[in-house]
C-alpha cells in the first residue's frame, strides 16, 4: 500500500535527517520505527503526509505519488492519513468536541466550517468516536482540563473522524507513564486489527515493540540499519541502533 523510495531530507543548514531510505508497507501491518531522538523518525513520518517536503525520493500511497501532489489533491490524500502526536497537539482552549470535529475538516464544505458550523451527523460521529475511546463524559470540557492519557485519546478520536486507511503515530506514548502507554497502544492495536487500518508508529520501549509490532525498522542518523520481525530484535541489535551508552537502560527494558 505504501512505498517509500530513496527518500532523502536535508534541512536548510545542512542537517541530513534521512539518507536514501527505501521500504514498503503492506495493508494491515503494524510497523514500528525505532531509533534515537534525532535519528529521523519524526522527519520520516512527516514526509509521508508531506508536513515536511522531502529533498529527494518518492512516497507512493495506493499508487498515488504523494510527493508530487499539491493543493486539493494533497489535502485529499492527507484526510485518509491519520496522525497522532507525542504532545497530542490539541487546541487547548477549544472544547473536546471541537477538537474531535477538527478531524473532519478535510471532508466539510470549507465555507460553512470556516464560520464554525458542523452538521448534526458529524457531531454524532464525533460522539461515537469519543464513546469508542470511552471519554464521552468529557465532551464539553476544555482540552487543557484533561490529563495526558485523556488528551491522547481525544487525539485518536480526532484521527478516527478522518476514517483513515493509514495512521502515523509519532511517539504516541512518550509523554505518558507506562500504564497509560499500554492503554493507548491497545486502542491503536484495536484500530489495526478490527478496522484493518495500517499503522506506522515510532516507539522507544522494547516491551511495547515486542508486544504490538508486526515488523520493525531501525533508523540511525537517517539510514536504515535494521528491518525485520520484532522477535529478531535482541540486546545486540538494540545496542547497535541505540549506541553503547544506552546499554544499561536497554538491559532493564529487556528484563
Amino acid at each position, binding site marked *: 500500500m505504501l512505498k517509500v523510495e530513496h527518500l532523502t531530507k536535508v534541512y536548510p543548514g545542512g542537517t541530513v535527517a534521512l539518507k536514501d531510505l527505501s521500504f514498503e508497507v503492506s495493508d494491515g501491518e503494524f510497523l514500528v520505527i525505532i531509533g534515537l531522538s534525532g535519528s529521523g523518525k519524526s522527519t520520516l513520518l512527516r514526509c509521508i503526509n508531506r508536513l515536511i517536503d522531502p529533498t529527494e525520493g518518492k512516497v507512493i500511497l495506493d499508487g498515488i505519488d504523494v510527493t508530487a501532489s499539491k493543493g486539493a489533491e494533497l489535502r485529499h490524500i492527507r484526510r485518509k492519513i491519520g496522525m497522532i*502526536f507525542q504532545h497530542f497537539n490539541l487546541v*487547548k*482552549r477549544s472544547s473536546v468536541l471541537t477538537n474531535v470535529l*477538527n478531524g473532519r*475538516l478535510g471532508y466539510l464544505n*470549507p465555507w460553512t*466550517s470556516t464560520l464554525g458550523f458542523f452538521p448534526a451527523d458529524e457531531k454524532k460521529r464525533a460522539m461515537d468516536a469519543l464513546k469508542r475511546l470511552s471519554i464521552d463524559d468529557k465532551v464539553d470540557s476544555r482540552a487543557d482540563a484533561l490529563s495526558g492519557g485523556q488528551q491522547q485519546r481525544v487525539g485518536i478520536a480526532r484521527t478516527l473522524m*478522518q476514517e483513515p486507511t493509514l495512521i502515523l503515530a509519532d511517539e504516541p506514548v512518550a509523554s505518558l507513564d507506562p500504564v497509560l502507554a499500554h492503554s493507548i497502544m491497545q486502542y491503536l492495536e484495536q484500530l489495526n486489527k478490527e478496522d484493518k487500518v495500517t499503522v506506522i508508529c515510532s516507539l522507544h520501549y522494547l516491551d511495547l515493540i515486542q508486544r504490538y509490532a508486526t515488523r520493525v525498522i531501525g533508523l540511525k542518523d537517517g539510514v536504515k540499519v535494521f528491518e525485520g520481525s520484532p522477535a529478531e530484535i535482541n540486546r545486540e541489535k538494540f545496542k547497535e541502533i541505540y549506541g553503547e551508552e544506552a546499554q544499561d537502560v536497554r538491559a532493564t527494558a529487556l528484563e
Partner: protein
Amino acid sequence: MQKYKPFLKALRKLLITIVLVVLIILSIRVTEPDLVKLVSSFPKAESIMGQLLSPVLFDRESEKITVSQMVPVPCDSVPSLVSADSGPRIILDPPCGSPKDVINLRGVELPPNAEISLRWILPDGGLLSIKNIMTDDKGEIDMPLEIRPITTATDGKAAQISFEVTLPNGKLVVAQTLKDVIDAMFVTIFMALIATTLGTIIAVPLSFLAASNITRRGALGTGVYYLVRAFLNIIRSYEPLVLATIFAMIVGFGSPFAGVIALSITTAASLGKMFSEAVESIDTGPIEAITATGANRIQVVMYAVVPQIIPDFLSFTIYHWDINVRISTIIGFVGGGGIGYLLSQRINTLQYSQAGTALLAIILVVWALDFLSSEIRKSLV
C-alpha cells in the same frame, strides 16, 4: 583574566553609578527644582487643594436681573429714551454725552449687597466690560462713568450701559457644573469606546504582518515584517496627545474627532504590538495536527490559530479600553470635547471647585472601569 573578574565587575558598577550621578546632576540643573518656592507657595497650594477637594455638586438656584439704559453719544445722535420711574433702573446725569466726557451713573432699587457686573453694549452688539461693583445697604450704586470713543452711536443706534445682577433664591438644585461634567464624561467614555474599536480593527491585520512566525518568510515577507514593526514602534513613541495635535490641525480644533483619530492610531500601534506577541507565542502543534487532517489554510487558521489567540486579543482589547478612558480624560486638551477640555477650561478660569467636580468624576469613572475590566479579564483567562 579570571582573577580580574571581580575587579572588573566592581569597576563596572562604579562606572554606572558615576554616569547616573552625573546624569542626575545635569537633570537637576536643567529642571531647576526650587524647593523654596514649593514651600513658599504652600498657602496658595492649600487654597487650591481646598477648593479642588470641595467639588460643586449642588447649587442654590438663582435669578438674573438685567437692567440697561441707552446712552446717546454724542448727545443728539439718537433720540433719547425716557427711563422707567420705578423698579431696578439706571439714572444717568446728564443722560447723554460726548466721547471723553465723564457723567454720573446711579443704579437704584437694586438688591442690597449684591455683586453687579457693569458693561457697555456697543452699537454693533459687542460687549465691553467696565467693572464689577457691589451695591450698598440700600441697594444703590453711584459712580462716575467715562464715555469711551468706541461707544459713539453708529447707523442710528446708540450704545447702552447695562447691569447684570445674580440673586440666589435658596432652592437646592443639581449644579450646572455637575450636569456639564456628566455630559463631558459620557463623551469621554464614547471617545475611548470608538477609538478602541477602530484601533482593534486596524491592529488585527497589522499584528499578523508583525508576527515573525507568520510573516517572516522569504525576502518580501521579511521586508514587510520589518516595515510594519518599525511603523508600530515609531507610532508607539508618540503620546496620543501629540498625534492629536496633527489631526486637530487637519480637521480643525474644537471637535473630539481629532482626539478619537489620534487615539485610534496609537491604540492600533500598541495593540498591534501586543497582538503580534500573542500570535508569535502560539503553539504550533495544533497547526501541524489540523494540517495533517487535510484541512485547507483557512480552516487551519480558523481552527488552530484563532482559538488560541482570541482570549488574549479580547483581554488586551479590554485592557486597552481601560487605558484609553484614562487618556481620553486629557485628549480634550488639544482637540476639544470630553472631560479634559472642561477641566482645563475650569482651571484656566480659576474655578477650582468646579474643576474638583471634574476630577471627582474622572476618579470615579476610571476606578469603576478599572475594576470592571480586570473582572472581565479574569473571567477570560
